[in-house]
């Protein structure tokens, strides 16, 4: 199994621990990664589509040349890619972009590149049985609140296009269970984390952090797990500010998806760089340490 690996800006910038963990975990799972280094940021939903579609078409064309599907580790990247790829299935539109923007570089996108988030790869390509066989440390007793955020689930017709992949609506819970941990449910697990409005309306953004993290804590979670580093930036990085806004302590560790996976695959907290988070992950480390 081999992928063109698109780590995204945040995993290479604000959340370096995500990159490290993802690479280590992939290796353990026999997923071969060839990193795409000469391609652009997706636009992250912050660029208008008339700018981002051409640069994303370029990325897809490069992967097509490599003959590989793309794997992402960020819901936002995945969401933007999926939507762009959806528009680029229109042959006329694709040709226009090839002609106007890609031809000069000798590139042309044929519309065949598949783009998958690591979470989907685990279930749809690697398979549950293989995954199970590699677990070395079932996370028994760990209470995890799965947090999807938005982009991995919506818009539904694009992110979950067919019945065959209907499971995407529950992969995160399935994975938590598969790794031996216990699911803690919150009402907002598929809601927004608030990151996208941080600039436009900070109070509202921090309010979302307080709501999701607070509810997880109240429901007894030891931590939240998320497939999106932007969710992580907000839920983890801004948790202290959300706490002071609401005047209450939450102090809930936020774990990246590959980190949780890594812990079950036998890596220790340092290898998964849990120490890099803003909210201390000590509670999680302690529980996991007891398991070994």
């Amino acid at each position, binding site marked *: 199994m081999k992928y063109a690996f698109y780590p995204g*800006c*945040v995993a*290479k*910038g*604000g*959340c*370096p621990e995500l990159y490290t963990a993802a690479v280590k975990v992939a290796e353990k799972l026999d997923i071969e990664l060839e990193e795409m*280094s*000469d*391609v*652009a*940021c997706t*636009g*992250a*939903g*912050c*660029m*208008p*589509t*008339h*700018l981002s579609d*051409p*640069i994303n078409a*370029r990325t897809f064309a490069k992967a097509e040349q490599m003959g590989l599907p793309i794997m992402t580790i960020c819901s936002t990247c995945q969401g933007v890619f999926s939507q762009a790829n959806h528009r680029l299935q229109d042959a006329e539109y694709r040709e226009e972009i090839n002609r*106007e*923007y*890609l031809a*000069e*570089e000798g590139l042309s996108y044929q519309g065949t590149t598949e783009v998958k988030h690591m979470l989907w790869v685990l279930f749809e390509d690697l398979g549950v049985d293989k995954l199970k066989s590699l677990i070395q440390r079932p996370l028994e007793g760990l209470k995890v609140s799965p947090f999807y955020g*938005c*982009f991995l689930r*919506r*818009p*539904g017709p694009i992110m979950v296009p067919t019945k065959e992949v209907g499971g995407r609506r529950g992969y995160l819970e399935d994975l938590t269970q598969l790794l031996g941990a216990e699911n803690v449910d919150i009402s*907002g697990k598929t*809601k*927004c984390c*608030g*990151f*996208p*409005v941080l*600039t*436009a*309306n900070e*109070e*509202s953004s921090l*309010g*979302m952090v307080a*709501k999701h993290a607070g509810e997880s804590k109240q429901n007894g979670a030891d931590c939240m797990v998320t497939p999106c580093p932007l969710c992580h930036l907000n839920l983890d*990085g*801004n948790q*202290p*500010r959300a706490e002071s806004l609401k005047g209450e302590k939450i102090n809930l560790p936020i774990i990246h998806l590959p980190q949780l996976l890594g812990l079950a695959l036998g890596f220790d907290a340092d290898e998964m760089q849990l*120490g*890099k*988070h*803003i909210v201390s992950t000590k509670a999680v480390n302690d529980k996991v340490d007891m398991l070994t």
Partner: protein
Amino acid sequence: MEVTYKVHREDPENGGESSFSTYQVDLPEDATVLDGLQKIRDEQDDTLAFRASCCQGTCGECAVRINWRAQFTCTTKIADVTKKGPEILCAPVRNIPVIKDLVFDMDKFTWDKMAAMKPWMEPEDEFAPTENLIPESEMADVRKTMSCYQCGLCDEGCAVLPVDFDFLGPGAMVKGYRFVMDPRETGARKEERLAVVEQPKGLWDCVHCYEANGKCARGLEPSSKIMEMRDVSFKHGIKNEKVARHHNSFINSVKQTGWLDERKLVMETEGLTNIGGLMKLVPTAVRAMTRGKMPGRHEKRPGADQIKRIIEKAEESK
């Protein structure tokens, strides 16, 4: 068939505490949830308050949460909501102040927000003797958008409203879209229109969670409409200054290096003269540095020149 209604009650003249009343109702197989409510009011409890008007899914008046999902009582068949059990739970749409029982404050929920869109045209040639000549292809989307009931079901799903009730919400944005996309408003009017849509608590406060797409009673895809309006706003120049700074910074960063410089993004978004804004960021920055989390040096990527070329060309194309 025999069903059990469990209905939210709240009486402003009686302390405004909320509770549930339970009623047994015998209804025809093809009855709607509204039929049952009307029967209850007629035969069992005439104090029950709920709204309805057209009774055929065309006016948008009867939104209620049925088994916790917001929908119209007049088009929801009891047979469809009793598949898992004979109980039908009715509660007001969430996040809205309740006036009585299932009647909630539509002013705050919808009407005031719609009005904030300044939703009317004031054409200079209002009394011209003939109509505007417009190709059907340019009118169809506006017309479909105008089928919006202004029912507020999409607001019910919105991710922002629970944390910021003043957000104008997807319903009002759909109203804005109807004008932004109307070929009859051009030039200075279009710019004014965009400024209205981009007002604080408007277009840029949406978190593009795409929740509303799945909630719209008329399939109007409100979230997608918001994103389309953002594309238009980009082409006309973003009018919300802070957002404009953020986006310019973002695009410049990608243009220069092929990827995103988060550090600069934060600084430029706050505006270099915005001392108050910068001070707010300090605690996060300090915390981040002590954890070795502050993004490192921002290197130019291979391919960056091509990326710059493409973006610049696309910028010209608008």
